[in-house]
């Protein structure tokens, strides 16, 4: 936001300032986030996001836990995109250990990551509607999300914390008939995606509340370190799947949806269009799934990585999810750092909310799509 833009938004009438706590138990903060808002009439003059309510110290925990245990911990960062967390930790560790991953496992990983992206974006789609008073979308989104979670349950037994992507591959092969069920879901889901546009995306009330609200320029978005659909909604083409293709992403054709002006609606619609692209990727994976083993060799029960440092990053559902892994030859990491996209995306609120109306706070907060488990780690 430029100086002049903030100047214009300042209220013309002077009134008393009031301090309002938004959260930590507000339903639309999607977890335990507190924002201390100082308001003047209806306009926000100061916003202080306060995080840490869900801090579990996973980086400290990892220091004395084995690599296999760390995969389990990773599920708990961003619990809506747990496959991505498993994936990025395994990628960093595999880089250090130098293990080969079988071809089939690579494809299964991509399949799961994209299904998980759909599940995560569906939750955003549903709850963002609720935040803005549209309840119907939520029911639709959760019906479809449940189908994805059922698919995951059949594969690995868990609905949210999968622990499916393991060092050197995946936990086990797909169960019988799973591919058909996945195909059935895709056929069903593609029709629903069209419904979503008529249901919410181009709903006039929804457009009024999001179209010209919370605009972030590409320069600001980059400067604040935004990533994922948030950054792309501002028109910056930055997607780790294209930037540094990992696993077997370079074999599939897909587009990276970009927004125009970086408004709340653009961020919302980027995610909806990403679901279309995820479906496209999944169809390609299902079409050319190679046969073979799903778990590579060369990882011990208590693995030790050679001393060294590695950084791995993937495009999680919320953005650029990175892991810095430092090993000193022990059976647990010497230092594990999680570059959590939600944590970085959230900090812009302190500048972005200033000058906005009180009623737009939820629209802006919802559009950034944070998961507090990942913010606090």
């Amino acid at each position: 936001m430029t100086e002049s833009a903030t100047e214009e938004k300042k209220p013309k009438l002077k009134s008393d300032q009031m301090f309002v706590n938004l959260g930590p138990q507000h339903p639309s903060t999607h977890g335990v986030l507190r924002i201390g808002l100082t308001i003047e009439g209806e306009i926000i003059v100061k916003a202080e996001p306060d995080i840490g309510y869900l801090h579990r110290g996973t980086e400290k925990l990892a220091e004395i836990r084995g690599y296999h245990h760390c995969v389990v911990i990773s599920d708990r960062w961003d619990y809506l995109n747990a496959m991505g967390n498993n994936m990025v930790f395994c990628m960093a560790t595999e880089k250090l250990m130098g293990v080969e991953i079988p071809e089939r496992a690579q494809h299964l990983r991509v399949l799961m990551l994209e299904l998980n992206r759909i599940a995560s974006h569906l939750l955003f789609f549903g709850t963002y509607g609720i935040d803005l008073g549209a309840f119907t979308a939520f029911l639709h989104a959760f019906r479809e999300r449940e189908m994805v979670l059922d698919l995951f349950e059949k594969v690995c037994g868990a609905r949210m914390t999968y622990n499916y992507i393991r060092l050197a591959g995946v936990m086990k092969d797909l169960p019988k008939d799973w591919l058909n069920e996945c195909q059935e879901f895709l056929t069903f889901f593609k029709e629903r995606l069209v419904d979503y546009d008529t249901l919410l995306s181009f709903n006039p009330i929804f457009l009024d509340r999001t179209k010209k609200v919370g605009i972030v320029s590409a320069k600001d978005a980059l400067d604040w370190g935004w990533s994922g659909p948030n950054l792309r909604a501002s028109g910056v083409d930055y997607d780790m799947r294209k930037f540094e293709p990992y696993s077997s992403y370079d074999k599939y054709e897909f587009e990276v949806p970009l927004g125009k002006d970086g408004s709340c609606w653009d961020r919302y619609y980027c995610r909806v269009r990403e679901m279309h692209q995820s479906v496209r990727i999944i169809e390609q994976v299902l079409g050319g799934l190679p046969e073979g083993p799903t778990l590579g060799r060369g990882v011990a029960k208590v693995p030790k990585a050679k001393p060294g440092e590695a950084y791995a990053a993937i495009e999680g559902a919320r953005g650029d999810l990175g892991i810095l892994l430092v090993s000193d030859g022990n059976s647990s990491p010497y230092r594990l750092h999680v570059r959590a996209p939600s944590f970085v995306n959230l900090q812009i609120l302190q500048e972005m909310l200033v000058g906005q109306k009180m009623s737009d706070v939820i629209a802006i907060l919802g559009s950034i799509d944070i998961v507090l488990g990942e913010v606090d780690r």
Partner: protein
Amino acid sequence: MTTKNLDKEALQAKFAEKFPKAEAIGEPAEGAAPTNLKGYLTMKLAASSDIIPVLRWLKDDLGFSYLDMATAIDWKGPVELDGYIREPNPNVFLPDGATPQVAQPLPHKTVNYRDAFELVYLVSNLEARLKVCLKFDIPRDGGSVETAIPVHRGADWREREIFDLFGITFTGHPNLIKILTPDFLIGHPLRKDYKHIKDRFDD
């Protein structure tokens, strides 16, 4: 100026021209542990005061406008188990009275343990699809670094996180307060010599 064709070698040459004191970390000497970030150009800066000029030069002249990651590593040595209050992996099948099988991490002879924090910055050039890692050491006692906020606004919370977990201060930071750990927690948990002091939530 477009930086689309920039690659690792060209960037390293530009570094040698502009900041000759910064050395690129290449393959380690015989028997030593590698300290470069695998696959990325890793530059070891000569002094902590270099970081802001380097970040600004990278951003203004070479298009590295995206601060990807900023964090720190404590190189004091393997963490000690008595810093934790709970057993890391309780073995429920262990008979009563047996000693718990928790492995104390041991120092490795090839790793360069030292009395220092190492700060790690990763900046990206989105056009050239290139990332560069910047590293430098600061002393463990009373070390401080200049804040990167004037160059990358997004450094704000990441510096607060480093301050909270390591106790490294960032001079010039407008709001350097705890961010993740609760107010009553004493100490900086990611320091290798951190000892947890029991509080009312531990029992």
